[in-house]
């Protein structure tokens, strides 16, 4: 039982990381109708900058803080140079152009930082455990991620639901033309939304750095999961991104944790573990296919005016 609780928290932690990634991506897609495969690259930039700044300054917090503008600025730069020209293109062009960006960024970090992965350390004050339930200590750092992610989620909700900027973003997701006609500076809005998405991705990368390895290509694996999340959640909906992210995080973690045990009832150990890991990986795609079968536009589709 305690084990299950610990795995549940792990699932939540993965879910929150995915939420940070997918919130930005779904906004970009919803507002600007652009598929951005390079979103994973912002995640990577955030992780690299955080690792470098933390290593030099000795402060993890500083590293994370540095990662935010780094990723955000990179995002805005990419938007101005490349994405802006893709708004009116079809999705294939967007996929390919941003695929090219992935290749470029992966190589860029190799050139700047070398081939070896960087190691980002968990800060001393977070390297202990917390006993949420007596007898089940949970690493403080992972708990911190959950808390940080939740706070960001609330802040994002407040931004979208309660501010003017948020109102314009929501309107833009529904009908960008109309918003432009009403006199809003669409160019600026697009750049800001894109930059915000990149910033969130960079935050996710910086937070994930101590747990995963900071290396070239680290954005790809989380990117796939992120796409699954926004498709399940409904493109353009931040609420959908949250629900989708939690669903995917839980299914993936609980699947990885308990499927091998389930299979061990039928198969020898090494095989059960291998098959279990594979089935667990397949699980989220099966989930996505199932959701799309019932709701072809996701759980919380944004109605386009």
């Amino acid at each position, binding site marked *: 039982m305690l084990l299950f609780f610990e795995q549940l928290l*792990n699932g939540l932690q993965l879910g929150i990381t995915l939420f940070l990634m997918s919130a930005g991506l779904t906004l970009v897609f919803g507002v600007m109708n652009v598929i951005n495969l390079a979103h994973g690259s912002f995640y990577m930039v955030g992780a690299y900058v955080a690792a470098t700044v933390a290593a030099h300054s000795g402060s993890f917090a500083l590293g994370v803080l540095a990662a935010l503008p780094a990723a955000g600025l990179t995002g805005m730069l990419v938007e101005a140079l490349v994405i802006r020209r893709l708004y009116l293109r079809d999705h294939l062009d967007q996929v390919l152009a941003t695929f090219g960006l992935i290749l470029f960024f992966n190589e860029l970090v190799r050139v700047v930082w070398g081939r070896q992965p960087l190691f980002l*350390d968990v800060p001393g004050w977070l390297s202990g*455990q917390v006993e949420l339930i007596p007898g089940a200590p949970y*690493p403080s750092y992972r708990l911190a991620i959950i808390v940080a992610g939740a706070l960001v989620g609330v802040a994002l909700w407040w931004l979208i639901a309660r501010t003017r900027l948020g109102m314009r973003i929501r309107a833009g997701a529904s009908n960008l033309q109309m918003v432009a006609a009403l006199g809003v500076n669409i160019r600026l809005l697009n750049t800001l939304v894109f930059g915000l998405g990149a910033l969130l991705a960079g935050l996710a990368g910086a937070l994930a750095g101590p747990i995963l390895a900071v290396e070239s290509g680290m954005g790809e694996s989380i990117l796939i999961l992120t796409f699954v999340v926004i498709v399940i959640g409904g493109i353009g909906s931040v609420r959908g991104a949250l629900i989708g992210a939690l669903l995917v995080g839980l299914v993936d973690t609980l699947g990885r944790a308990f499927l091998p045990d389930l299979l061990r009832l039928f198969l020898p150990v090494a095989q059960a*573990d291998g098959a279990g890991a594979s089935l667990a990986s397949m699980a989220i795609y099966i989930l996505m296919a199932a959701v799309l079968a019932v709701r072809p536009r996701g759980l919380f589709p944004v109605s386009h005016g």
Partner: protein
Amino acid sequence: MINKTIAVAAAALLLGAAQQPVALAAEPVRIGMLTTLSTKAGYLGEDIRDGFMLAVEAEGGKLGGVPVEVSVEDDERKPGKGVSIAERYLKRDGAKILTGIVFSNVAMAVVPKVVREDAIYISPNAGPSRLAGKGCHANYFNVAWQNDNLHEVMGKYVSEAGHQRAYILAPNYPAGKDALAGFKRYFKGELAGEVYTKLGQSDYAAEIAELRAARPDAVFFFLPGGMGINFLKQYAQAGVDVPVFGPAFSFDARILKAVGDAAVGVHNGSQWNHDLVVPANVQFVHDFREKYGRMPTLYASQGYDAARLIASALKATGGVDDLDALRAALKRADFESVRGRFAFGNNQHPVQDIYVRRVVKDDEGIRNETVNRVFEAHRDAYAADCKL
């Protein structure tokens, strides 16, 4: 008329002479190294390469007096990539000696193809059980160890230290399976758990949670390179209070550097350590630190030994034209290994001593200190299956 004839004859002679291989100005012997230079385990390949090249450069670009040309490429831990690099070395470059592979899954895809093309492969690291037993081949030599060895020594040590309930982990690939098989062969207690993780996995939260729930009295894990770093850090963060054991792969100099205090007190098994009192070793450690500014890992020592093994064979044969002679010379292993005592068994895998080390912290930093010689002239478990 005569002028023309003379001209033609002279031309023919010149052409004929040009065709003769001028044996003295020898073409350097091409050695193709494919190794893992990227991914979290990239430093393993780097160390193997650096150790190897240290020996080559010590002889001024030669091995055993014969000039060599070493090509190095990155297999990215992908068997498919390894196969295409090997193909290029063999067919385009005509290399007759290949070496360098770090990971057993890459080795399993590449080595059988290399030996079938009648080229020689010398492994400075990967030693899958299949290639030591039924799949052995006269063209395949392993200068490091057979995968099981460093785990066997820990199985014996952990048992003798009085632990009875072990939880064991390794990645799900040939070397991982060999690792746990080797440990189980010499461990006399019961297993609280046997887990195979994904190769390249970064996040071990799920596995550590299960480990904690199983309440073992010893943890044995094999996670080379960056995987080991991640696991040890997360293990320390999770605050599980069970003593940890592993092969040297889980506790090499780089891992210790990255993990720091979390590793102090841990025991690990190795065929080599920087403090082995062997003249060749003292020289090697000194030269390596001077050239590269860092402490060599066991991978570097293996790369170095591989180069010196090749040097000893080239010294005897003068080149790679006579492969039978080369093979025989290699098998003799007439070189001074940094490990001291070294010989090949019938399956061309090492017969050597294996030690247990402990991680200590002192003024010099955090490092491995040799504690005990546990195996003497140890032979691997698969030699009998090899028909050589």
